[in-house]
């Protein structure tokens, strides 16, 4: 009832407000905006970005003001949304999905005084900066756990789009598992979407039906993990800590941590020295991690994961270190060498142990 009284009261004063401008000018906080590909409540990718935004708000208080637009399709609509945000006076705009790359570049040309930050793409410009997270590092650690836990030696991976960002996570997961048990194989199902809990669930069921007993996904919802619990197998959380969705099946969550980066970008802009170098952060930089590792995994797995995590954080170990064999048996990288960032960012093959063909 209160809301309706409130409604009546606001109706009364509405005429005056209609004429008033919507945005008031008190202090001048730095206006920042985020464009999200999914809903904030996806519990995964977009949720992680929104946690990052909230962390920046908490750190900087009224020095910044933020706006979000969620579930923006990656087609012609995104250009309008990004342009609109720039036209409405936002000085920093984060576009948080690969499909926003071309629209972001187009709008950036028209708004040279606005700084754009695009997540996971590869084209930058004077005022377009790329940032991304080396999720293959926690994916590798998840693989080590999977290698210890899997009884059948078959892992499952629910994958979104066959782009390098996803392919390398499949590879890292498989390499991690095979570092423990060289006979392990990974089955992959492509769902061609970032966020569709229904499709993600179907894919997980298909994998479990084919014998996979430890699942990982590179999609944005918690559906795969929940399906695993329903079917009595194990799985991981991805992008955000998903323990609460399926505590029995959950072995750990590979999470993104954007708060530090968003805070840094804001601070640099406030100081008048905008951050414009490409950031591709990993566990070392505190931009991702494998967290909430289940207490039920074997002690040996705990020890190896802790050791590898420390080595990755200190920079001593690189995930993509040779020898790396492709799934067709060819040598992709000689022993002792490591893949360069450019090679990691354009990977177009499965490593040995991943079943099937990469969609072409």
């Amino acid at each position, binding site marked *: 009832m209160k809301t309706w009284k409130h409604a009546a009261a*606001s109706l009364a004063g*509405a005429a005056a407000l209609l004429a008033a401008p919507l945005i008031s000018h008190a202090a001048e906080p730095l206006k920042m905006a985020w464009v999200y590909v999914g809903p904030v409540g996806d519990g995964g990718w977009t949720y992680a970005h929104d946690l990052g935004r909230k962390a920046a708000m908490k750190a900087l208080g009224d020095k910044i003001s933020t706006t979000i637009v969620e579930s923006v399709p990656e*087609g012609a*609509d995104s250009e*309008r949304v990004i342009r609109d*945000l720039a036209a409405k006076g936002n000085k920093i705009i984060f576009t948080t999905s690969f499909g926003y790359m071309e629209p972001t570049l187009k709008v950036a040309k028209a708004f040279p005084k606005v700084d754009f930050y695009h997540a996971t793409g590869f084209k930058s410009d004077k005022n377009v900066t790329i940032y991304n997270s080396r999720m293959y590092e926690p994916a590798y650690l998840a693989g080590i756990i999977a290698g210890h836990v899997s009884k059948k030696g078959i892992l499952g991976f629910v994958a979104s789009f066959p782009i390098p960002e996803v392919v390398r996570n499949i590879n890292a997961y498989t390499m991690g598992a095979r570092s423990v048990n060289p006979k392990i194989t990974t089955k992959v199902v492509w769902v061609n979407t970032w966020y569709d809990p229904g499709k993600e669930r179907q894919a997980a069921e298909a994998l479990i039906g084919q014998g996979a007993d430890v699942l990982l996904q590179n999609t944005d919802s918690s559906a795969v993990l929940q399906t695993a619990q329903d079917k009595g197998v194990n799985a991981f959380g991805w992008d955000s800590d998903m323990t609460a969705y399926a505590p029995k099946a959950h072995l750990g969550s590979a999470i993104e941590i954007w708060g530090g980066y968003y805070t840094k970008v804001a601070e640099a802009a406030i100081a008048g020295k905008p951050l414009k170098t490409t950031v591709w952060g990993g566990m070392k930089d505190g931009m991702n991690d494998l967290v909430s590792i289940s207490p039920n995994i074997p002690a040996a797995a705990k020890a190896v994961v802790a050791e590898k995590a420390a080595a990755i954080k200190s920079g001593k170990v690189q995930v993509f270190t040779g020898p790396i064999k492709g799934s067709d048996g060819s040598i992709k990288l000689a022993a002792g060498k490591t893949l360069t960032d450019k090679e990691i960012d354009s990977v177009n093959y499965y490593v040995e142990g991943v079943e099937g063909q990469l969609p072409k």
Partner: protein
Amino acid sequence: MPLRLPFRLIPRAQPSQRMLLIAPLLAVTLTLVVGLGIFAALGQNPLVAFRVFFIDPVSDINGVSELLLKASPLCLIALGLAIGFRANIWNIGAEGQMYLGGIFATGLAIHFHENGGPWLLPAMILAGAVGGALWASITAFLRAQLRTNEILVSLMLTYVADLLVKYLVYGPWQDPQSNNFPFTVSFSDDALFPVLMNWWDWLEGTRINLSLLITVVAVPLAWLFMDKSFVGFQLSVAGLAPAAARYAGFSEKRMVWIALLIGGAAAGLAGVTEVAGPIGQLNDRWTPGYGFTAIIVAALGRLNAFGIVLAALLMALLYLGGEAAQISLQLPKAISQVFQGLLLMFLLGCDVLVNYRVARRMPANALVNA
């Protein structure tokens, strides 16, 4: 045991033609009234929210341009669909026909990337229409020759078309410089609809392009075809009274082919206007589902060419308003879907009451006692 409601619906012998036209307006009004209540319940000043949602998005020339850019493909597809819907031929696969339009046009754009000319864009437009019509012809053939259900076939073919787009942009048509990301090269200028601001300075900064002309021409053509031509009359008769149409000797097969080919061609054209318009390339996620939204637009527009124009503008405005409400009022995205849902529900509700009257049902025990 079937549910016994205290009232029942009795078909009206002669539904009021006037009310049939007023129903969409009534539905819009009811949607707005309920919408104001929702805004209030969300703790917003309803009138401010109303202004942000429905007026601000089109309060400047850029907003109007965006509205037209969004409404144009919706309108084009809905016009094509309406022709079939009038004859009770339910083409649900406009989305897939739109993909094929995009694919055919992109094929030309890529093949003549280096050596285009002023002929390239018209060729792409033609190819897109042919592509959409060809895709629809599969449905037409199966329906006309084998009497399969066109709803299922056209819908299923949409998923096939989607996979075809994905195959192309991940495979043979992928931009070599794309780092394995799924898109083609950006089209050359010859393969793009010129933006209107090239000619008129007052449109500076807007994205509206020459493809609007296709829709502007299509509207009166569709009206002439549907309401003034003999074939259009045949289609309407086939829809309203199939037995009468058969008795009059109208060929059902011919109707199926005409309806689906026109619907497919229109959707294919809309595909060209997108890939050669604001997107400028083919990628694996270039349409926000225009082919499906257009079904609502056609229904809302009463399968009438001019009604469809208004319906397309309204649908486009709901999208833009939803974005504005997120940006200015921090309202959730779901609000625009709520509006779309309300609109459709009220329209269907009004339709029921136009076509049926509500009569009280005698209580079941009343009969026993009597």
